């Protein structure tokens, strides 16, 4: 066995579909799952003599994302034609950005077990999507649907700063979180709104000598799971290949591989030798874009609080744990919901516990989610009322769970449920004294044990009283009375 260290190097290209109503260069609606070729016009069909006109909103959303990724927004940017032949590309070129991307030199901060890490962003540019190929099950042909042609995509390219599968995962998830916080993309994975292309190779140091394995680009992964599995597989495969062939990276070359979801393996994609010769040239049909510095400043100022900032604030302002703050900022909807409950109940920490524990448990068993707010039965206002009722001692925490469950299934508010079922906590001393007396009389065994010095017998007596009260007795008041009476 030789003495060696192996380091994986991963860079990621991510395509994010922007949340616009229409395509990048024409007024056709962006759509998903509609009748094939029903959202097409001369522009997105690439018919001769048409002129593309840039969608202002697509550009604005792109700049917002670039700013959130700490990129420099180019004061002068243009579009280029990238030429290749494929049946889903009607013009035989894609309008993209080559040498003057709208954003460059940014970073994204990720969180892993080992702490926070800045992943540098090389560039972010705006381009159009291609159509879709449907492969006929029978027959020797494919069908082309051009509804997706011209849909605006933001391509975000990282530097090769990712070193583990965990970091790759954190980067992808964090990117998704950011674009949804910004509202620049719906980032719906099932609808293919995010597509990932990792570039992977290994740096191997053997007996003091450094080697790099050939770079592999994995194409078109469309789920976090596929990215993780694909990268993990490549890490193993490249090491095995190194052991066998000792083949090294050649400058400027990379192989393209696909990922098979059912086997979990990557495979070589047949490639034309001149595939990367795209013959870029400036798009003559689009003029340059030169954003005014004041406009960029305005967008910068208007950026919402981003996930990590929000998480930090939840920890410092509300005293939440890192873990809870992470759960509560996982989605913008969750964060908004929690903050509203915290504000209305004036009890942030208990509010956090109710959201992350009781509420999460109840909605998970019912298959509901805070993100689909329209049919979510417990508004922040309603949960805040419950949190307050528990905090003010109107009901116990245990009764609170019951009330929450009823709130989800019915239409009544916490106050209505408490009143209708007589669930309010009993703190009236006279009534509680009666209950304690009854319990002492009914449980001579534990009483004798306690007086003989077995202090844990107190728990059994407490339990008996709480049970007799249907969980409504105020435990603090009860334990005071109980101890007092036992010492008489």
């Amino acid at each position, binding site marked *: 066995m030789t003495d060696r260290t192996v380091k994986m190097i991963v860079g990621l290209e991510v395509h994010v579909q922007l949340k616009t109503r229409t395509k990048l260069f024409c007024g056709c609606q962006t759509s998903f799952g509609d009748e094939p070729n029903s*959202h097409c016009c001369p522009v997105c069909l690439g018919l001769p003599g048409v002129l593309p006109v840039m969608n202002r909103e697509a550009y604005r959303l792109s700049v917002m994302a670039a700013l959130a990724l700490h990129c420099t927004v180019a004061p*002068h940017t243009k579009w280029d034609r990238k030429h290749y032949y494929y049946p889903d590309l009607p013009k035989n070129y894609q309008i993209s950005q080559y040498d003057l991307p709208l954003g460059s030199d940014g970073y994204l901060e990720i969180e892993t077990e080992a702490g926070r890490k800045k992943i540098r962003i090389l560039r972010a540019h705006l381009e159009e999507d291609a159509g879709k190929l449907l492969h006929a099950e029978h027959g020797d042909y494919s*069908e082309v649907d051009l509804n997706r042609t011209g849909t605006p995509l933001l391509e975000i390219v990282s530097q090769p700063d990712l070193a583990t599968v965990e970091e790759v995962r954190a980067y992808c998830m964090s990117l998704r979180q950011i674009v949804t916080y910004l509202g620049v993309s719906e980032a719906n994975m099932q609808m293919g709104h995010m597509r990932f292309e990792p570039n992977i190779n290994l740096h191997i140091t053997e007996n003091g000598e450094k080697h790099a394995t050939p770079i592999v680009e994995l194409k078109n992964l469309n789920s976090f799971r596929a990215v993780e599995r694909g990268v993990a597989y490549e890490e193993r495969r490249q090491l095995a290949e190194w052991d066998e062939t000792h083949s090294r990276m050649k400058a400027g070359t990379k192989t393209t591989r696909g990922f098979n979801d059912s086997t979990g393996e990557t495979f070589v*994609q047949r490639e034309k030798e001149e595939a990367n010769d795209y013959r870029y040239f400036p798009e003559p049909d689009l003029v340059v874009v030169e954003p005014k510095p004041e406009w960029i400043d305005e967008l910068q100022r208007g950026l919402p609080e981003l996930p990590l900032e929000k998480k930090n604030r939840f920890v410092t302002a509300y005293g939440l744990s890192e873990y809870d703050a992470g759960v509560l900022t996982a989605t913008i909807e969750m964060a908004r919901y929690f903050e509203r409950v915290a504000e209305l109940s004036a009890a942030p920490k208990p509010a956090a516990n109710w959201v992350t524990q009781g509420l999460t448990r109840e909605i998970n068993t019912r298959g509901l989610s805070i993100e689909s707010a329209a049919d979510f039965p417990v508004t922040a206002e309603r949960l805040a009322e419950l949190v307050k009722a528990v905090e003010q001692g109107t009901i116990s925490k245990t009764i609170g769970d019951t009330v929450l469950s009823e709130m989800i299934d019915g239409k009544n508010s916490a106050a209505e449920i408490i009143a209708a079922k007589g669930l309010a906590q009993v703190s009236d001393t006279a009534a509680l004294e009666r209950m304690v007396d009854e319990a002492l009389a009914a449980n001579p065994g534990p009483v004798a044990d306690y007086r003989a010095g077995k202090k844990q017998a107190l728990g059994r007596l407490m339990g008996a009283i709480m049970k007799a009260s249907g969980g409504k007795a105020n435990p603090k008041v009860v334990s005071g009375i109980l101890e007092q009476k036992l010492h008489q």
Partner: protein
Amino acid sequence: MGLQRQEVEKVAKLSRITLAPGEAEQLADQLSRVLDYIGKLNELKTDDVAPLSHALAVANVFRDDEPRESLPVETVLANAPSRTAAGFKVPRVLEGDED
């Protein structure tokens, strides 16, 4: 600027153009002369001239993100040399062929 036959053949291949025998040599000669002619521009001193990426001195032409009516599917497919009920029909493309 002498263009070689191999370069012409490569460009032809990238552009999906089939050349007749002898055409590559002929085009290499013609294109070389075109390039030489355009190459005259290189004689100009451009050190003090900012690069131009568009011939028009116009910037920031946008449209609003407002949907407009698309074409009926029948019209979309009208020019297709070959079609299915709702799509363009093309020779079968194999998985992994993608650019």
